């Protein structure tokens, strides 16, 4: 067992150098909630809540070890998948895990909703499978849908695993309603009024009623199931789903297929759109009541209006892999080997393009700007300035402007010192900003998107991640063994750093929990 006093030689790291021990002492995949930042301490088997006032405290999980943290959308707590050791030996002398004969030692799992530093109801959620790893939230933030989004990761099979189930959890009361929705749910959407959930599973789409006042369908029942194939031997795997603005239709794209299913959620019927290519992304333009499709295999943007679902096609210069909505239209870009960032008016089909110097890694959209981190371009053989850009990571600022026929404002491309490891946006009365973390650099770059000037906010250690906090601040995780979080105020650039919380419980013995309950 690691001892805390060994830390002395380096105030931020445990012996051994680097951050190789981080995962054993603390998990930098922290969860920022409105009441603090929750951090999993794998080695100690604890969950701690760190507050911006510099304090931290352990969350009582009744002796269970947090295995996985699932944030809530609203920041109102988090879901914790936890395990605890059980010993099938009633000998009162068996107290610690080490006391239990190996053949009698086992593990049980549960899922808890944690708010304000404690489990809601002081207990685990009733019947929620510990294999859940994904959550989707209603628009009002009061309901969560928990499910297993299988992505190849190792799944602990405790008895049996139900791959057909979604657990709806009321975030206020912790009450749970489990609904069988079809094999391997992939994606869940709540309708705009939060009265129904649209759940994509293999070869079918289920609509679950969440409204107890509904006369058409019982609450927590699958009201309607839409088949995606009539051939039981054919597996149709949904890839993405969007809801039109009024929630009356869901559009479902299919993995490796050109078909897009149009599900009429009101009249409960199905139509099929056949595209000329497999769409790489789709997004709803709510202002124009249209859905926009882009393709990584075709330099074209397709638009479907939502009345008769007629398709219109518009040629562009380059394929795109992603499309997002902005305040003035849709923004299509490519995170593979192309450079165009296209602002597209779905109503008219007009578009203008800006140029990213390097291929996009991550793109975020603010009110007046889109920003992107960019990776070195290994596929070009430019010279001069272009070659310089190509060799380095970059950061692009793309002013967002309506497609009027005039040329768009040119994008600004900045060269980065190292690989970007975190990107977030903030805004105040003065302007919009990007917060940028670079690998191995112990400062946070705050870039004014209006003039591309950057302030450096010093950090105590090289950062490894950044995320938004519900209170408007940003949480930067530092590369230290004992745990480090920095609460960054994007308004005044103030930084509060809290470190050392990963030592919590390190020296505590591994006690067998819940023994009295068992008796």
């Amino acid at each position, binding site marked *: 067992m690691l001892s805390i006093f060994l830390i002395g030689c380096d105030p931020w790291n445990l012996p051994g150098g680097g951050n190789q021990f981080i995962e054993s002492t603390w998990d930098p995949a922290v969860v920022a909630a409105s009441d603090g930042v929750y951090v999993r301490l794998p080695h100690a088997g604890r969950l701690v809540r760190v507050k911006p006032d510099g304090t931290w405290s352990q969350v009582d999980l009744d002796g269970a070890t947090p295995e996985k943290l699932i944030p809530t959308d609203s920041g109102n707590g988090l879901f914790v998948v936890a395990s605890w050791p059980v010993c099938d030996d009633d000998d009162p002398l068996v107290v610690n895990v080490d006391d239990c004969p190996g053949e009698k030692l086992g593990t049980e799992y549960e899922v808890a909703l944690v708010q304000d530093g404690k489990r809601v109801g002081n207990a685990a959620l009733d019947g929620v499978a510990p294999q859940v790893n994904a959550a989707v939230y209603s628009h009002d933030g009061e309901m969560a849908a928990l499910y297993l989004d299988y992505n190849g990761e190792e799944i602990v099979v405790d008895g049996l695993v139900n791959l057909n189930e979604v657990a709806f959890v009321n975030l206020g009361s912790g009450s749970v309603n489990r609904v069988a929705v079809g094999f391997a749910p992939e994606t869940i959407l709540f309708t705009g009024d939060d009265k129904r959930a649209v759940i994509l599973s293999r070869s079918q789409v289920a609509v679950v009623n969440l409204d107890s006042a509904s006369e058409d369908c019982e609450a927590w029942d699958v009201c*309607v199931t839409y088949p*995606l194939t009539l051939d039981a031997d054919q597996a149709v795997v949904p890839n993405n789903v969007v809801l039109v603005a009024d929630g009356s239709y869901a559009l479902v794209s299919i993995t490796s297929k050109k078909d897009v299913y149009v599900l009429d959620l009101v009249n409960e019927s*199905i139509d099929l759109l056949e595209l000329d290519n497999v769409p790489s992304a789709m997004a709803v333009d709510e202002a124009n009541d249209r859905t926009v499709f882009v393709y990584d295999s075709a330099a074209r943007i397709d638009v479907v209006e939502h009345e008769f679902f007629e398709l219109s096609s518009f040629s562009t210069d380059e394929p795109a892999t992603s499309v997002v909505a902005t305040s003035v239209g849709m923004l299509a870009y490519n995170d593979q080997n192309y450079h165009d960032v296209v602002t597209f008016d779905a109503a008219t089909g007009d578009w203008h393009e800006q140029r990213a110097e390097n291929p996009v890694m991550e793109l975020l959209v603010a009110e007046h700007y889109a920003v992107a981190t960019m990776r070195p371009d290994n596929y070009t053989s430019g010279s001069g300035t272009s070659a310089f850009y190509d060799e380095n990571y970059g950061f692009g600022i793309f002013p967002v402007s309506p497609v009027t026929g005039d040329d768009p404002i040119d994008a600004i491309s900045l060269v980065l010192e190292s690989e970007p490891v975190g990107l977030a946006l903030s805004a105040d009365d003065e302007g919009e900003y990007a917060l940028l973390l670079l690998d191995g650099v112990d400062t946070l770059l705050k870039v004014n998107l209006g003039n591309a000037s950057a302030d450096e906010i010093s950090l105590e250690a090289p950062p490894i991640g950044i995320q938004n906090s519900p209170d408007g601040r940003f949480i930067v995780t530092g590369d230290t063994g004992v745990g480090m979080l920095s609460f960054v105020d994007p308004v005044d650039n103030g930084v509060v750093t809290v470190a050392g919380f990963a030592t919590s419980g390190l020296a505590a013995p591994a006690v067998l929990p819940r023994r009295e309950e068992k008796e």
Partner: protein
Amino acid sequence: MIRSTLIALLVSGCGETSDMYASEEAGTSADLAEGGDADADADADADGDTDTDSENEDDYMKLAPAATDAYVFVANPGRDTVTRIAVSDLAVLTTDVGHIPSTVQTTSDYSLAITLDEGDDSVTVIAAETMEAQSVEIRDNMNSLSLSPTGDFAMTWYDPDKESLGSSNGVVSFNEVSFVRLDPPEHVPMAVGYNPKGVRWSDDGKLAVVVSDGSLSVVDLTAAALSPTRIMLAEDELDAPVAEEVVLTPDGLYAFVRQRGVETLQIVDLAEGTVTPVDVGEDPTDMDVTPDGQRLAVVARSARQIWSYDVDDPLATPSLLDFPSDTAWGAVSFADGGDTAVLYTTSALIPSLAVWDTTTDFFDERSLIKPVKAVALSPVGDVAMVFHTKQDADDTDPSEQFYNEWAVTLMETDGLGENRMVVEAEPTGYSVTDDDRWGFYVMDGVSTLEALSFESLLPEHLKLASDPVFVGTLPGRTMAWTSQQHELGRISFYDPDADELNTITGFELNSDIEH
């Protein structure tokens, strides 16, 4: 009147070469009074049609949808359902019917859709608005369905020449038919003459005449207990000449029977049960009642004459009208609501037709670019869609632009306007709108719907997502529909006034939606 069309073109072509059927009348959309049967007569194929032969697909796609003014109904034999597609918003509803619904038809008042369910020997009656369905058992192995014009009755029978989609393995009878009273569904089986070929209904729906080899069976549909009264047309019904066409007078008092190879017309007094042969010209090849219901016109091809009988007094001496030339036309088609008919032939490569003004008996002979495969008249008869054979007349110059090409001519019958068009492939179905403004056709293996304006005589090409199978128009509306090949079902609706083509794809999936 159901305007679903289909197949009418192949139908006439097959008729020309069939050994069994010598008639050369081509079915037109206006002739589809028998619920999708392209014949004007009682039997399913007595015009020489082979109605089920036009499509090669061996799945449900060959089943013609049925239309009302608001909906199109599609039978899904693989899933034992019928899908209703609303034209207004393409909303889809599906209901369960019997096993393997092979045919769907709608009643003339559009209130009911009827399926013949071959897999479990039943007929299902579906309320068009509510989609509530009731099934009733019928006799085994029926594979054909006809609805009375008033929508009160259906009759099913076994047609040995027609493919069956399901078999109950029960008794196969060659004398049975099943009448079904539709509201509420009630089955009345009966034995009729040998090898029933179909049924003719009187316009008022009070009488049914079942056509068999060598006999007619008359059924009074107003009787409390239905029973057939047989009228023999030949002494030996097992060796009787085939009744190629049977036409009832609108009042249901008489039936006219044209038999293959018989140089007389049989006039049947249905009330008295008597059969009186009357003279008809040499080689009678087609007959039709005029739209006003007053005359029966019989084309005597070899005599180059039209024999015209008074429907009210059929035994009176017929009037004769000579062809305007020595051309051997053998078919006549009347416009639904007008004074125009056309004479043409599909049994010989003759590139001409004659427009017949029935009020003056004046013939306007027109030369055509190619021989005729089928003719469709607009409802008032002022425009004709002429579908040509690919094969040319014997003396055609190979350098002609239409030589060895499929072609369509859109022509005014009351004027000189024409539009002659080489088309990409063989037309396989057509229809016209009730308002006399548009005609539509589809071609084999070409993913378009062709719309022909009867006003401008100009075509419009509507690109479809896949190859069309059937085309039709909605009764009372300026709207065409075309079903298309797609494993999950596809149908498009075209409004030529708004120039809107709306398509729903995958509606077969709707049958598996679990509510």
